[in-house]
Every structure is written in C-alpha cells, then in structure tokens.
C-alpha cells in the first residue's frame, strides 16, 4: 500500500474572498412544529393525488403538474417566512399555494375551471394568484417567475417594508437566460430575494446532466457573487434550516441568495408525461428510501407521537381534500359573461 509522502500538508479549504452565509444547520423542530410540517406535507400529497384522480376523470384539463415527492421543499422553506414576505413560482404551484394559506377548495375549484376558483376559472393549474396571501403566481412560462420575483424583491426594498421575496424555479428553468439577467440585477441592487432551485433532476424528460454544463446548480450565482447552498430537499428540517439561514442573510441587507434543493418528483412532468426517461426502479427506490413524509413520520414516532394520532391526522386531511374535490365538482362553471370581464381593469 502506497504511503502518503511525508511532505504532504493538510490542505486548507480555500478561503472565500467575501462573506459567506454560515453552513445551515438542520432545524431543531419541537414536536408540535414537526407535526405541523407533517400535516402540511401530507395535505399537499393528498391534494395532489386527488388532483391526479380528477384529471383522470376528465374533470381537470390541460396541463397539470403535480408536486408529489417535492413537498419537503416548499413546507420547509415557507415555514421560515412571515406574512410580510411574498412568494412566486412556476407552473408546479398547487403546493406553494396551499402553504400560503389559500383554501384547498379555492385551488381545486380553479383546477376544475369553476367560477369559485381562485382565478374565477380563467387561470387554471398554471395561472393562479392571490394578492391577499402574497402569492404572485403560478406562471406558465419557464423562468419568467425569476425576473418577476426579482421585481417583487425590488418592490420590498423600494417600499422599505422589510419583506423578502421567494422565487422558486426548477433545474430546467435554471438554464434560461433571464435567470442570469435577474441574478445580476438582484446582486447589483442588493435586492431581498431568495432563489430556490427545486432540482428534481428532470427538466421534463431531460436530466440535469444532459442539459447543464455546471450541474451543481447552487454554484450558478458565483459569477454574480451570489452565494449558494445545496440542501437535501427530501428532508423538511434541512430545508427549514437552510431557509432560516437564507432569510437571515437576505433580511440583513446582504442581497440575494440561492438555495439548491435536491429533490425528486414521483410523477411525470405533467399528467400527460409517461416518464419513460427514467426507470420504475429509480422512482421506487427514491420512494422507499427518501420519502420526506415517511421520514417526518418516523421522527414524530421517535418523539413519542402515537400511530393513532397520526392516523387521525391522515383522516382529517383526507376529509379536507375530499370536501375540496366535491366542492370543485359541484360548484358551477363561470357565467358566459365572464369571458369578457377582467381583460382590462379600467374602462376607456
């Protein structure tokens, strides 16, 4: 066996030439906090499964992108926000909306295209907004939310309201030019914005390795001097811990920060994607070994939460989701006259 040369010195990690955020710590949640995270993740999971069913029944049309598998990201990150802060994302948006406090039936009724939907049935799955809950979409053009979110950060700074903008985008959007245009301005102007890259490893059918020269996406801000942190996005407490670090960085006026959340979606890109670009085994193995909900469940049991209590949580959530689904099927479609409303705000 070769011996290490005597002269080998211990290699120091390179010193950054500028301030860096601290290495985030896994969040130490109380039992109640973890239970809340568990409920939120489960609500998204069951909601999305129901949406998938309704899609199969023809009640939901068009494109419908489910968040199943990625729940820990949004739950962990958004739990670190306050009501001063704003959220924007792409088209895989149902989960983020529920976490903003938008009632599940308002979202589900939008998916079924009903008048009672959050966008009066005119937006659909990819185009939902709630100014009241500071959720700014729901954007169907890949990457658009990054510039728009940077604009939300701009507005927080301009208004000096202490708020932070949170812009989610995927590994696919991370290759859009406008993302880097936005990074440049955000750092130049020290805007309060957290960029969360939800790296679920597939941009529709193209894996990160096939599309990205730099596949470590948290480094994508380097040339703009934006620090990035890579996070286990299948662990809600890791996501929360990283979010705390990011929020502290941004609120301190240090400018933007990037969180790359390594995650995985179990379903296809959208309901119409058969996901032939990966093996069934790959998906099953992620489900078996890395499921964020199962992981939280085990930790809750470790904290002394009884199986019966968790079953009760499950039942409550199923009830809530079923009610939302029933509502979304029964509530009427928009009146025909709605076709012509809301095109413009004012009359000329």
């Amino acid at each position, binding site marked *: 066996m070769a011996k290490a040369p005597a002269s080998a010195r211990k290699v120091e990690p390179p010193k950054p030439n500028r301030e860096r955020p601290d290495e985030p710590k896994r969040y130490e949640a109380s039992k109640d906090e973890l239970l809340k995270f568990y409920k939120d993740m489960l609500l998204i999971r069951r909601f999305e499964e129901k949406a998938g069913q309704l899609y199969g029944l023809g009640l939901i049309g068009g494109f419908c992108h489910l968040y199943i598998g990625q729940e820990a990201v949004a739950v962990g990150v958004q739990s670190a926000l306050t009501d001063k802060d704003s959220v924007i994302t792409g088209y895989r948006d149902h989960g983020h909306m529920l976490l903003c406090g938008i009632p599940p039936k308002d979202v589900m009724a939008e998916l079924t295209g009903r008048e009672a939907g959050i966008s009066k049935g005119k937006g659909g799955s990819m*185009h939902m907004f709630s100014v009241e809950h500071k959720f700014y979409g729901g954007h169907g053009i890949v990457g658009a939310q990054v510039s728009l979110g*940077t*604009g939300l950060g*701009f507005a927080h700074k301009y208004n000096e309201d202490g708020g932070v903008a949170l812009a989610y985008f995927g590994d696919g959007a991370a290759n859009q030019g406008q993302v880097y245009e936005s990074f440049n*301005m955000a750092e130049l102007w020290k805007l309060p914005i957290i960029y969360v890259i939800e790296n679920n490893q597939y941009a529709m059918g193209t894996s990160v390795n096939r599309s990205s020269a730099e596949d470590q996406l948290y480094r994508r801000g380097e040339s703009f001097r934006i620090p990035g942190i890579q996070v286990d996005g299948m662990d809600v407490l890791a996501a929360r811990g990283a979010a705390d670090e990011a929020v502290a960085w941004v609120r301190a006026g240090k400018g933007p920060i990037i969180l790359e959340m390594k995650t995985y979606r179990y379903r296809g890109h959208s309901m119409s994607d058969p996901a032939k670009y990966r093996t069934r085994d790959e998906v099953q193995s992620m489900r078996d070994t890395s499921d964020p909900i199962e992981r939280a469940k085990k930790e809750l049991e470790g904290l002394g939460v009884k199986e019966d209590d968790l079953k009760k949580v499950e039942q409550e959530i199923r009830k809530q989701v079923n009610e939302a689904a029933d509502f979304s099927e029964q509530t009427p479609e928009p009146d025909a006259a709605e076709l012509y409303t809301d095109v413009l705000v*004012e009359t000329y």
Partner: protein
Amino acid sequence: MAIELKMPALSPTMEEGTLAKWLVKEGDAVKAGDIMAEIETDKATMEFEAVDEGTIAKIFVAEGTDGVKVGTVIAMIAEDGEDAGSVETPKPVEEAEEPELREQAAESKAPEPKLVETGARQMFEAASHDAESDPEVPDGTEMVKLTVREALRDAMAEEMRADERVFVMGEEVAQYQGAYKVTQGLLDEFGDKRVIDTPITEYGFAGVGTGAAMGGLKPIVEFMTFNFAMQAIDHIVNSAAKTNYMSGGQMRCPVVFRGPNGAASRVAAQHSQNYGPWYASVPGLIVIAPYDAADAKGLLKAAIRTDDPVVFLENELMYGRSFEVPKLDDWVLPIGKARIMKPGKDVTLVSYSIGVGIALEAAEKLAGEGIDAEVIDLRTLRPLDKATVLKSLAKTNRMVVVEEGWPTCSIASELAAVAMEEGFDDLDAPVLRVTNEDVPMPYAANLEKLALIDSDKVVKAAKKVCYKE
C-alpha cells in the same frame, strides 16, 4: 490653403446647434484629435475634434451662439507654413452665388456636412404640421411651445411628484440623462432610488418592472428603442397583459413600457420597425402612439395613472419637434380617443404617430387640388376608437389609412376590416392603405426613401378614392 471648419451634423435630424464653448483660441496650434469646441444639439453636448493639423487662424462664431446652422463655417485653420493672419473670412456656401465660388467651396479640403434627402427626413419635415385646434383644451388656456421630448419628461416628472410609487428604469435613463434625453433631469430631482440605470438586459428588467408592478409599484420601463423590446416581449405579453384576466381580476399590473418605435433615419432593418400592430393585437394591453407634444404629455400621464399595462410608442424623429402644449396644472387626456386634427368633407385620412404629419401635409396638398380631407389621429391603437373613424367615414364616404409600418396585418388592415364590417354602407370606394413597403428597411438613402411613406403617396391614394386621378 486654410481649412474651413464647419458646423457638423451630429445626428441625422440635426439642422442647427449651439456653439457652447471654444476650447481653443486664435493662434493656438492644433493637431488631429484635439478637442476644439463643445457643440450642443437638442439632445446632447458633443465634442468637436480637429482632424487636421495647423494653427487656429480665425474664429467666426463666438461661443454661446445659438442656432448655428449645420455647414456654417465656424473657424479656419491655417496649415503649416501659412500665415494665420492672412486668412480671409469666407463667404458661407449657401450665400455663394457665383458658380465658381461654389465650386471652390466644394473643392475645399474640409469635408462638407450635407443633408441627405432621405425618407426619414421627409417624415421629419412633415412632422412640423400642427393640428388646427384641440377641443380638449379649454378656451383661453395659455399655450407653451415644448418639444415632444420635454413633454414626455414633464409628464413623468409630474406623475412622479404626485405618486411615490412611480419610478423609471431602463438603460441610460439616470446618469446619462436618457439615450435620447427623454429622462433629462429626472435623476437630479428624484434621486437614484426612483430613476434607475439598468444593465443591458431587456428581458430581465422588463420582468423586474412587471414584477414590481405586481408587487404594488407603478414602474415606467424605458426601452432604448422598441426594437430591443423584442427580447422582452414575453414579459409584455405573457406576464403583464394577461395577469388581470388570469387572476380573475385580483392582480393588477400597472406598468408603462415606453420608448421610441418605428423608423429613424438611416438605421436600417434591425432598428426600424413599427411594433404598433404587434402590441395592438394583444388583449389586456393598452397601446398608445401619440403624434404631437400635447398628446405625448397628456397621454403619458394617463398611461402612468391607469391600472392597466400600457405600451407607449414614441418616435425618435418626433422627439425634437416642438408643438403647443396647454399650460395647465394637470393636462391628462383620455385613453382610447382619436383626435380630429383637421376637419374635412371629401376623404378621411387616418393615421397615428409620425404618419399624422404626412397625412396633414397630404391634406394641405389635396386642398390645393380642391379636395377637402379630414385628418384623424388615432392616438390610441388599443382600444381603437372605431366610433370616431366610422363617424368620419359616414361623412366623407372615403378612407385612406396612412401608416409608417408594414402593410401586412397592420393597423391599416384592421381599419379596412372595421370599415367593411361596420361602415360598408358608407363606403363609396375601397379603403386604401398607404404604408411602408413590405420589405426590411434598407440602409441606402434612396432605398430608404422608397420604402417609407410620403405625402405624395397619400395624395395619390386620396385622389384615387375620390375618383379624381
């Protein structure tokens, strides 16, 4: 022989300027590259460099002189070995009557700036035409002469004073004072929080502006020209225009995208395009394209105030043109209302933006041939004021649409369809379109002239619909 230094043309539309400062005096030696003077045009102060070596023999135009015509001899340089004191004052070329003198001038070593006859210049000349009156202006209102550029600036400044949420962002809008000087002085008054220089990143900053509007602010996003907004058109159409509808009316996007649009002079294909028809086809947008300074001011103020997203199309050739603007504390015009620039009874000429000048010039020519044309300035392209156009058509029974832009899928095509669908019984002749030629804008002066609209083409079309060919 001594070299004449002539007042240079520093922009394609410059006719005269101010000799702001001499940096040399008589007797000074100069060599190529030395800065001799500062010359102010309507949009910038430019440095005037020496291209020859010698001694400043005479300065003919004192510093601080306004209105120095392009081509005027402002100084002379004596070459090496020449006696600077013996240099004579030359006769200006324009006044030289003797043919041989003119020839001599032409042979002089200094290059002679000359005004090339171009299509853009014809449009620029025609844009000196004023409306006969404006019914929106209350009787007895004091009028002041303002350039379109100043009117736009005043509109932004007034709205920024009135509403803290209004800010301006774009390339060179702050420290440079605007690439076309439209934002001149705004940085001084409002500071860098509200007048923001952006990197050259149209897609990005259009998105940032749109996002800021979603977040409750009222951004004015300046594009250096609308040609560059092609990189940002996704945010204008997909993000800004559709937001209110897609959100069921709960999310506003009150942003103004503004900047010069259409052909400028000799800037060729990639910098000469009218996007009016493009944006006017998008539901959810307001599209405004004013002609004179009063409309530019009144409509930009309205555009900033409205809660809808607005595309505000200016014209570079118009920026330096002066018009009467009412001196009122708050001159705001209604969006979506056309304006009758000149009443008439025989034929309706409809246009917008710089085309209005061409239409007014054509109306003048037609009057000389006994045809009384009515000229309508659409001012807003979306929503289109069909009522005013159809009412005029009902009176004249003939219509020609004049548009500085391509013919295919144009505002002119749209108006022809409107006339067919809603004014068919009033038509005594087919609607004719006078538009630019259906080609990318050429660079060569003669070809540019052929490609652009002019008043002779309008006169010809008007006579045709009046069956007076």
